[in-house]
C-alpha cells in the first residue's frame, strides 16, 4: 500500500519554480530519505504532502486521499524543520493537546502522553514550561509529539537538528523502533549518515528536480559513499 505519493508535482511561487515535476512514492513500512542542497525543494515537497500548500500542477496523495482532507493526516506524525512550541504551556499540557488533536481516545490519552514523554526522556520535565527547555530538549519534545499515538507514517524535516550526539543516537533508536512496528518514514535531512542508517531508499532533489532515487546499493558505484553519490547527483 502506498502511504504517500507525488506524481509529477510542480510548485511555483510566482516566477520561481520550487518543484519541477517531482514523482515520489513511499510504501507502508518503507523509509525514504529526502536529500538535497539548500533550496532544492525538500521542505516544499513535505508541505505539499501535508496539505500546507497546493501543487501548481501534478498529483499529491497522502494515505490514498487528498492531503487537504483532514482524514488523510490521521495516523501521521510530523516534525517540522522550524519547531515552534508554545512557550508558556507545560510540556505535558502541550502533548495532551496534541494527543487530543491526534484523535487518541480519551481513556488512552494520558497513558500515551506519559509513554511519549518516557520514550524521549522528558518524563522528569513533564511539568516544566516549554519556555525553560533547551533547544535539544525542545527537539525531543517535537519528537514526542510526532510519535504520539504510534503513527503509521512519520514525516520528519531535519529531525536531528539541535540534538547533541547522544540525542542523535536516541533519535535513531526511536525511528528504528517506529520502523520495527511497521511505520513508514519520510526523512528530509542534510545529515547523510543519519539518512544512510535510517532509510532504505534515498531520493535526491536538486533545483526542484529529482536527480537520483533508489536504494544506496543501486545508486552507488563501487567504493562510493552516500556523500559521493550525493555530490555526483547534485554536481553532475
Amino acid at each position: 500500500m502506498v502511504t504517500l505519493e507525488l506524481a509529477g508535482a510542480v510548485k511555483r511561487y510566482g516566477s520561481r519554480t520550487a518543484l519541477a515535476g517531482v514523482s515520489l512514492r513511499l510504501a507502508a513500512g518503507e523509509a525514504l530519505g529526502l536529500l538535497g542542497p539548500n533550496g532544492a525543494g525538500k521542505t516544499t515537497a513535505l508541505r505539499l504532502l501535508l496539505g500546507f500548500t497546493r501543487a501548481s500542477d501534478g498529483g499529491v496523495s497522502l494515505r490514498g486521499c487528498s492531503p487537504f482532507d483532514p482524514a488523510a493526516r490521521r495516523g501521521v506524525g510530523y516534525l517540522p524543520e522550524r519547531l515552534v512550541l508554545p512557550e508558556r504551556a507545560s510540556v505535558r499540557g502541550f502533548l495532551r493537546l496534541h494527543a487530543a488533536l491526534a484523535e487518541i481516545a480519551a481513556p488512552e490519552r494520558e497513558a500515551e502522553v506519559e509513554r511519549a514523554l518516557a520514550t524521549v526522556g522528558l518524563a522528569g520535565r513533564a511539568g516544566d514550561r516549554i519556555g525553560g527547555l533547551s533547544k535539544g530538549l525542545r527537539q525531543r519534545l517535537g519528537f514526542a509529539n510526532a510519535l504520539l499515538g504510534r503513527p503509521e507514517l512519520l514525516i520528519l524535516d531535519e529531525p536531528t537538528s539541535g540534538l547533541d550526539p547522544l540525542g542523535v543516537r536516541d533519535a535513531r533508536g526511536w525511528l528504528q523502533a517506529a520502523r520495527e512496528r511497521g511505520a513508514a518514514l519520510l526523512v528530509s535531512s542534510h545529515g547523510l549518515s543519519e539518512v544512510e542508517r535510517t532509510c532504505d531508499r534515498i531520493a535526491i532533489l536538486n533545483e526542484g528536480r529529482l536527480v537520483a532515487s533508489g536504494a544506496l546499493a543501486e545508486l552507488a558505484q563501487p567504493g562510493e559513499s552516500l556523500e559521493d553519490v550525493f555530490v555526483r547527483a547534485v554536481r553532475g
Partner: protein
Amino acid sequence: MNGFGWLAREAIADALRRRIAFAVALAALASVALLESCTSCSPSLTVNGELRELTELAGPAGLGSFVLLGLWGIALAGVLAADHLQSTLDDGSALLALARPISRDAFALARLAGVLGLSLGAGALVLGAAIALLSARSGLAVAPALAAAAACALGCVAVAALAMAASLALPRAATLLLVLGGVWLTAFANSLGSFTEVGGWLGALDRFGPPLASAMALALAPWLDGVAISGDSVRVTARLAAWAIGAVLALVYAFRRVELRG
C-alpha cells in the same frame, strides 16, 4: 471535547495570555467605574437655562453611553482578531496543529472563538454593568438593552471575522487601521443616517454596510421618549446578522486558500 473544542480552548488561553488582555481588563473596569459615577450624579441639571430632571435625559444619555460602550467592544474584537490567526502562521505554530486531522475551517473558527471569548467576556462585563446601573438608577427598561447587547455581539462577530480575513492579506498595521477606521466611520455614518437622509458613500455605508451602531441604537429606541430613530430594528438587525455570517464565511474561504509556509 473534539479537536475544535481543544483548539478553541487553546485560542482563548492564547488571547488571555496576550498583553492586550490586561489593558482590556483595565479599560473594562474603568468603563464600569465611569458608568457608576455618571449614573450617581445630581438629580437635576440646567440645559439652555432651563432646569431639567435628570430622569428626563436618562434615555438619550443611556442610549449614547450604551452604544459607545458597545462600539468599544466591537473595535476591541477587531483589534484582537487582527493578529490572532495571522501570528500562528507567521511563527509557524499553526503547522503542528494543521498536520493533525484538523480541517483548516476548524482551526480558523477556533482562533475566532478565542478572540470572541475574550471580547464578548469583556463586553458582557461592561454592558452587564451598564444594564444593571441604568436600570437600577435611571429606571430604564432591561429588555431593549439585552437586544442591543445581542446586536453588539453580532457586530463583534462580523468585525472580528472580517479583521481576521483581512489579516491574511494585509500587514498588521494596515489591518488595525482598517478595523479602527472602519468601525468608527461606520458608526459615524449610522449616527448621521439615524436622524437625516445621507447621500454619497457615507449613505451607502449606512444603508448597506454592517449597521454596527444603528442596530444597537434601534434596539434601544424604546428608551427615547418622543425622539424617532429612522430604520426598522428587525431589518437592521437581520442585516447585521447577514454581515456576521458573510464575514465568517469570508474568513473560512480566505484561510482555505492560504499557503502555509511556517
